[in-house]
């Protein structure tokens, strides 16, 4: 079974047959012929003080142009995401970019001018890692994304060392609780504490970086964690247990589109009768929200506030005014 071994003696000192060995990944090796061909001066003229040459990123997520991009070290995040990636689709707002794969950190908008190299990413709590670059827009909940990556790492960890295996298990439970509205005071501090030990004491780089998504989202989006824990509110309206769908009676046109598409039969109404979501039946799939015609936009997603009471039966009958765009009593 493939498992990391603790290696305090580096491969470059003693590796295969106890001889100094060169162990590198494909991307590094691919640079070698070019350096031999064009010389080290040429190579070192590209990049930053601490990181020479170019870097290939896999630009994905909420960005117009996705794919592999090769840029000189030191190119800013903004250049990569906006100039090359073409910005965020559908006019949405940028929220964060995660670099380095699942165990990278999430970097917020204020650092978009950061030149990307090893040192700068480390300063921001992230890594170059596998060269992954996931762009997230305003519809991303940072607590949920952190939970998502931790979930992934729970399976991807080999499970050999205690901080990584048991630490991820502990973190996963806490994050699952927070996104389900069961977060409690002290959770954020405990996540920081355990993340700190995972980074410091895990056996291999996976464990040492596994806490990055947690620690970086707490660092830059602490208010989102607090909203989940204290107000039971998901500001990005993502966490199912913390959001509700509700039909605005002022805007409902009783078109029955949501009613027909609801997989849980949670919507009550008929032609000319304003629709109402039965909250006890709603599975929060968001289908009603998606199918409600934009000209009505009657279905609302709310979080951290009570669902308004359904309108009285006698007021549900729709009197249609042909010129009106929205619904009307």
């Amino acid at each position, binding site marked *: 079974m493939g498992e990391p071994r*603790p290696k*305090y*003696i580096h491969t470059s000192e003693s590796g295969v047959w106890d001889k100094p060995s060169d162990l590198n990944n494909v991307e590094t090796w691919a640079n070698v012929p070019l350096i031999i061909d064009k010389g080290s001066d040429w190579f070192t003229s590209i990049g930053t003080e601490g990181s020479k040459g170019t870097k290939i990123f896999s630009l994905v997520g909420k960005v117009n142009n996705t794919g592999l991009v090769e840029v000189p070290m030191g190119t800013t995040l903004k250049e990569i995401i906006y100039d090359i990636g073409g910005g965020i689709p559908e006019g949405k707002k940028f929220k964060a970019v995660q670099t380095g794969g699942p165990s990278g950190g999430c970097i917020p908008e204020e650092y978009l001018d950061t030149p990307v190299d090893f040192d700068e990413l480390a300063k921001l709590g992230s890594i170059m890692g596998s060269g992954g670059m996931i762009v997230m827009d305003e519809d991303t909940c940072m607590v949920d994304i952190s939970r998502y990556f931790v979930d992934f790492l729970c399976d991807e960890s080999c499970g050999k060392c205690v901080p990584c*295996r*048991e630490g991820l298990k502990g973190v996963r439970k806490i994050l699952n609780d927070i996104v389900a509205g069961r977060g409690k005071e*002290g959770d954020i501090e405990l996540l920081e504490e355990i993340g700190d030990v995972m980074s410091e004491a895990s056996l291999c780089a996976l464990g040492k970086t596994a806490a990055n998504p947690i620690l970086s989202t707490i660092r830059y989006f602490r208010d989102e964690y607090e909203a989940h824990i204290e107000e039971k509110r998901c500001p990005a309206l993502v966490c199912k247990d913390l959001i509700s769908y509700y039909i605005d009676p002022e805007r409902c046109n009783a078109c029955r589109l949501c009613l027909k598409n609801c997989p849980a039969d949670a919507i009550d109404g008929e032609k000319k009768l304003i629709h109402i979501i039965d909250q006890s039946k709603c599975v929060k799939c968001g289908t009603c929200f998606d199918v409600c015609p934009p000209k009505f936009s009657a279905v609302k997603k709310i979080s951290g506030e009570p669902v308004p009471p359904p309108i009285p039966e006698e007021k549900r009958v729709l009197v249609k005014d042909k010129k009106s765009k929205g619904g009307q009593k």
Partner: protein
Amino acid sequence: MNEVTLEIDGRKIKVEKGLTILEAAKGIGIDIPTLCYHPLVSPSGACRLCSVEVERRGRKNIVTSCVYPVEEGLVVNTKSPEVIKVRKMIIELLMARSPNVKIIQDLAQEYGIKETRFELEDETCILCGLCTRICEERVGVSAINFINRGVNRMIEGPLEDHLGTNLSDMCIGCGACAYVCPTGTIGLEDLYKKIRSSFPFGTVEERTFGRRSGEDEVLGIYKNCYAVRSKKEDILERAQDGGAVTSLLAYALESGMIDAAVITVADNSWEPTTKVATSYDDLKEGAGTKYTFYPSGIGISEAVNKGYEDIGFVGTPCQTEGLRKILTSNQPYSIGKEKIKLLVGLFCLDTFKQELMGFINDKITRLGEVGKLDIKGRDLNIYEKNGEMHAVPLSDIEGYVNKGCFACTDFSSELADISIGSVGSDMGWSTVITRTDRGVALLEGAINDGYVEAKELKDLKLLIRLAKIKRKRAKKETGTTRP
């Protein structure tokens, strides 16, 4: 330069190059807690509890001391606030996983952790991997392994068969895993009950002797029985009875039949350990019976690693059975079985747990004074080096008996080349049963070269009675006769 100077907790020390920080610290009495470390196997760095802080070229790092090699000028702090923080978190995490495991409870108490903030589980296994490592590295069997990964990692082995891999088929029941298990998850008694009662005795017997023993052959298949006595005075002094084991092995070594013998010796606190004996002087150290359990089979890998080609082994019935299973199997055991040339089996009814020695030390006499132990009649006799003798009734120490042995059907090491014990011969003589041609050659050679004297043994009543008692007890314990 084969020495390096380093500083541990403010103390400058000079140690041998190649040691780990953990070993160097232990050498000057600094205790670093460990869970997945055991001197019998290679370090794995899995529990991270032995984390310490090292400073080199002005940079501080947390490293695991069980694998980090000492180096010149290294500054080590084994108790810095950073180190304590890491250890506390590890213990708190393990407290959640295994709240009812004693070593975890003890660590929590030592580090002042009253309760864990994580969700409680009730696992007994802490996944330290000592069992998998000793089975692979020292026994050469690999009947225990990790399965799954990440948070779902668990142990698959003779006692835990999640995937239906039937690793108990590979298991030789040596008990090494139980010996190193720090939590008691692999209990020797459970393991013995399962493995001894499912040991493919008939198959191994057939492969060894060409036939299976009949129901009434309670001493197994053999060629002859003798009363044997050493002709070496110094052996007789320490040996139980006739000193046959030591003398026969001395002949085997000196005649070139074997170039190393794996024997079991006891240290000052009567804790057994194996020794690779290559000379008469080495053998003398092993003379005398050790009554507590030890997985002596792990000594074979040591002999193989030291480069010996013809290895002899002395052990209890269960140990010789296990090795005979390996020798006659076509499974891919990695022990180096072509190098095992001689199996000398002992007579055995059951073994004691190591706790017995604590009892003797506390209640009878300091273990350091004890020169020899033997069982005569209904007493355990403890002989002090100054000649004084204490007789402890066996009924008083019943609680220390390793009950796993109750599942064993073999009194006289039926699968060995030659079996040796005290029962059945007069005082001062050992009973020897020859079983294979190699066993016969060993005894005949030793007689001819003046190592031992022997007379044929006619009266086997007592031997047969004990063998029957053992089989009857096993049947009662496991409900099965020999599989």
